[in-house]
């Protein structure tokens, strides 16, 4: 890395230097085309020779690696495709499990599966469908089509997407594979303790596999959320103001925001859960002050928004498909925005409707009942917007539309039964019965699977260049539609007839035989229909000619994609002035193809995309994005190893993997982020010059840090929620005679943390002002203070002898201080990284992304330290 230490911008010119070759932002392929010598504003774009040279450069720059190195690709198209294919593979696996359930329940007192194995099967069916298909498919599809829809060449953090994908793949295989050893989790997909936390009820590794595997996948989801929020807000094409954004992008923004607030509570819950399983800390054990209700709160604060996290992106596909086939712009654009944002908020006020029967007071249930009814309003609005758009347009029928209609028919049933179960008194009957099983499948298949299949038929020509078969599509639809209804409608009855969910057998004579048999038949018909879709997608079609470009004659930017697709995303980054540029802007496609808009070239042979402002998408920066690397895969592998080794209690190996994962992440950061460009700004065409390096709130990295820390802060607040939860349910908390962490150590720790925080902020401004030496001293001092502060906060409970095993009070205190100390140590590592970067010449007064982002982290760190120390030191005084 020493060869890079001298780079400080401005000197490189346009030539490829030796230093650039070791720079991973330049893909390492043989025979690179020659770099351009003239800026984009000064070439004649109508000259075919010029265009040919530009295209060669673009193709070379954006091409995915060949051979085994293909797996180091990070392009959104490659990663998105892997992601989608993997999600569907998990879906098929879970589908087989679903069919096994239906075989078992086809007749009463069946012995196809044992109860013990059945419990693993249904748990894995739910878990895989929800965590490995429904949520990831959103991320997968968004990673593919969002940049296309926004006329961007890639998402702002391609390597983060790749890292997320590898996490997802490894975690998913780990979770699914467990059933082959009959070691799968068997407590249901929401894993209620104490059944799942106590060894005597669930011996073995099943629950640990569930928990650690999924925690790991949650990391992938949050990574995707960060990527997609920044992508939507900052990577739109110039001119695409908020009111011109495709509706899909609105949905992505809302859903990614929801992930940011919904997943962290589950991560917090996972931490408590696993600490109980691994170390016997009694968070959910009532005998030592714990309460199983806390898990239900944390799980469903995640779990209900999750339903909308699954549903909204699928509805977003409908919002793109419907206008295309109604041959008109969407009617009621603002109403969709209302619905998306409104649902996003209201969905966080529903969680207790999964807990109506837990004995909470009626008034509390009432609030959640009210919000659960209210959320039906925006949901209904979306359906009426689609109906209104169809009624005011001239509809062309097609296979995607067939699936859209089918999804409406199914989803509306699910919505209506949802309104029913939202009323607590009815839910007291319906809860945990097959009525709810029917309801949730109507919602999820009508609201997610059918739209996604509609999306597959709709977008396939864009992705693969060839259309899917109409004939097969229609057959598949009718089999799926009829099969689904035959399979799931009778479950409403069996539920009301008194059939609880999650039973592996049922007796004769209750009237359950017929509905169950019909359900089983329907399930197989449905599966046959889905297999036809799979066949249609996978069948070889080398003889089939390419579909015409923009085969459905749609109006949005993703349909600029050429047949066959080029890796560059768009030929030039267009200026957008309408919602449906392909319909509403003259000569649009030709202008894009001729490179008459921005960035028609990759002059320096680097991957670049444009960053614009949030409200009006004014150009802000030409962003260099990093190219292929295996480092993200290594980071994911080592991180996976941490989780897997921890599952089996191999502690030394866990710690080793942790160190390797940290190293991998720092290597990835060092080589791929905050690279100092060879010149300050660059001509992107049409006379516009944009900076290549910006830091602070203007940079995408700063926003990524901000968003990540919002999610991280939410997880921390969820732990605080747990602490206050125990405080409210216990008359005395801490219980009399219990050791307390005292005032001294927390106060000292807070003082040290605040000093570290101030030092980090001063380091940022002094470095900017040119005081490099003083800044280095401050950075180093701040790191030392951070380590000391982390040690001090641990010292409180340690020296006062708080034993986390005896009661939930010391356990909760320990969790809060460990969380804070770990974050303090991470903050210190980031500061040390900045220090090294400064010595290496990669962090300078002018190029200060690293310290700017670290300083931002420290704002959150200071808030965390403040809340944690106040909570552990002062709460005992309050009781």
């Amino acid at each position, binding site marked *: 890395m020493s060869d890079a230490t001298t780079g400080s911008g401005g000197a490189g010119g346009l030539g490829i230097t030796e230093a650039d070759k070791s720079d991973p932002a330049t893909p390492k392929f043989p025979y690179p085309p020659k770099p351009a010598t003239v800026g984009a504003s000064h070439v004649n774009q109508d000259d075919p020779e010029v265009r040919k040279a530009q295209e060669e450069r673009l193709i070379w720059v954006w091409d995915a690696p060949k051979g085994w190195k293909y797996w180091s690709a990070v392009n959104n198209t490659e990663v998105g495709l892997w992601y989608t294919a993997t999600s569907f593979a998990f879906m098929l696996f879970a589908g087989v499990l679903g069919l096994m359930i239906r075989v078992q329940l086809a007749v009463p007192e069946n012995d196809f599966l044992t109860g013990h194995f059945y419990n693993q099967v249904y748990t894995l069916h739910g878990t895989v469908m929800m965590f490995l298909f429904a949520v990831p498919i959103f991320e997968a599809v968004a990673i593919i089509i969002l940049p296309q829809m926004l006329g961007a060449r890639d998402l702002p953090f391609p390597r983060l997407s790749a890292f997320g994908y590898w996490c997802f793949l490894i975690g998913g295989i780990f979770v699914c594979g467990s059933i082959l050893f009959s070691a799968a989790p068997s407590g249901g997909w929401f894993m209620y303790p104490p059944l799942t936390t106590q060894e005597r009820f669930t011996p073995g590794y099943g629950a640990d596999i569930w928990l650690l595997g999924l925690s790991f996948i949650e990391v992938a989801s949050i990574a995707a959320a960060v990527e997609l929020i920044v992508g939507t807000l900052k990577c739109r094409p110039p001119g695409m103001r*908020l009111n011109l954004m495709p509706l899909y992008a609105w949905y992505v923004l809302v859903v990614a925001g929801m992930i940011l607030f919904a997943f962290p509570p589950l991560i917090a819950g996972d931490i408590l859960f696993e600490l109980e399983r691994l170390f016997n800390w009694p968070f959910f054990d009532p005998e030592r002050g714990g309460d199983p209700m806390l898990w239900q709160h944390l799980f469903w604060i995640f779990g209900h928004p999750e339903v909308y996290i699954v549903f909204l992106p699928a509805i977003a596909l409908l919002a793109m498909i419907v206008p295309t086939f109604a041959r008109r712009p969407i009617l009621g654009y603002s109403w969709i925005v209302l619905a998306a944002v409104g649902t996003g908020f209201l969905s*966080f006020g529903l969680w207790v409707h999964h807990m109506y029967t837990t004995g909470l007071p009626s008034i509390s249930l009432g609030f959640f009942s*009210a919000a659960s*009814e209210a959320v039906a309003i925006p949901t209904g609005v979306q359906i009426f917007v689609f109906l209104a758009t169809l009624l005011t347009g001239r509809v062309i029928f097609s296979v995607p539309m067939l699936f859209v209609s089918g999804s409406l028919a199914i989803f509306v049933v699910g919505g209506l039964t949802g309104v029913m179960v939202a009323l607590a008194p009815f839910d007291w009957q319906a809860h945990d019965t097959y009525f709810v099983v029917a309801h949730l499948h109507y919602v999820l298949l009508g609201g997610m699977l059918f739209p996604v299949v509609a999306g597959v038929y709709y977008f396939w020509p864009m992705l693969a260049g060839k259309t899917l078969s109409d004939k097969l599509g229609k057959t598949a639809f009718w089999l799926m539609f009829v099969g689904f209804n035959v399979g799931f409608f009778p479950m409403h009855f069996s539920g009301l007839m008194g059939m609880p969910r999650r039973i592996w057998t049922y007796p004769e004579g209750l009237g359950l035989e017929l509905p169950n048999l019909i359900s089983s038949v329907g399930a197989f018909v449905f599966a046959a229909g889905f297999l036809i879709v799979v066949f249609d997608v996978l069948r070889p079609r080398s003889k089939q000619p390419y579909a015409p470009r923009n085969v459905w004659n749609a109006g949005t930017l993703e349909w600029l994609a050429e047949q066959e697709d080029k890796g560059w995303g768009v030929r030039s980054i267009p200026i957008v002035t309408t919602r449906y540029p392909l319909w509403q802007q003259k000569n649009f496609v030709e202008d894009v193809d001729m490179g008459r808009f921005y960035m028609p070239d990759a002059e320096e042979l680097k991957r670049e995309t444009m960053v614009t402002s949030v*409200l009006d998408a004014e150009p802000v920066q030409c962003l260099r994005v990093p190219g292929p690397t295996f480092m993200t895969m290594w980071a994911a592998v080592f991180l996976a190893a941490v989780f897997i080794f921890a599952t089996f209690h191999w502690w030394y190996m866990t710690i080793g993997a942790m160190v390797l994962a940290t190293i991998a992440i720092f290597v990835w950061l060092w080589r791929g982020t905050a690279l100092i460009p060879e010149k300050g700004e660059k001509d992107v065409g049409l006379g516009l010059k944009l900076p290549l390096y910006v830091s602070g709130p203007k940079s995408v990295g700063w926003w990524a840090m901000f968003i990540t820390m919002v999610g991280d802060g939410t997880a921390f607040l969820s732990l605080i929620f747990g602490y206050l939860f125990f405080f409210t349910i216990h008359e005395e908390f801490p219980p009399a005679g219990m050791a307390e962490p005292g005032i001294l150590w927390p106060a000292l720790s807070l003082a040290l943390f605040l000093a570290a925080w101030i030092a980090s902020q001063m380091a940022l401004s002094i470095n900017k002002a040119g005081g490099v030496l003083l800044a280095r001293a401050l950075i180093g001092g701040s790191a030392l203070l951070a380590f000391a502060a982390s040690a001090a906060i641990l010292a409180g409970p340690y020296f006062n002898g708080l034993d986390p095993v005896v009661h939930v009070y010391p356990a909760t205190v320990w969790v809060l201080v460990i969380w804070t100390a770990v974050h303090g140590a991470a903050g210190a590592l980031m500061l040390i990284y900045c220090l090294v970067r400064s010595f290496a010449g990669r962090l300078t007064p002018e190029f200060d992304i690293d310290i700017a982002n670290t300083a931002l982290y420290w704002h959150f760190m200071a808030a965390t330290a403040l809340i944690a120390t106040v909570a552990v030191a002062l709460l005992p005084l309050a009781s």
Partner: protein
Amino acid sequence: MIHSETRDNLWTLIAAPTIWALHFLVSYIVAAAACVPNVAIFQAIAGPRILIAVITAIALVAIGLIFWRARREWKGHGGGSVHDTDTATGRERFLEFSTLLLAALSFVSVVFVALPALFVADCR
């Protein structure tokens, strides 16, 4: 063209539902704190219910103000429900109209969430 008094952005857009969320959270906490021991469940909880009524009134007024502000400026920009023009005014008008719709939804939702405190008088 009338220049708007405020410049709308994503934060003003979500102000009304954020108020709903805060109202929801506070109502829940007030009721939970009053009922958490789950004993003496038939004892009336007038105090917490009045408190919920008060925060409901505050929330409704705040959302009403947001609604009224958005509506005035949206009308000032010419109203209408189509906002796909490529101008800063077009974007502004779109945000105002969406804010208005979200404020209406938030208003209804706050009323919904206040209803339990109206109909349930104790901790049963």
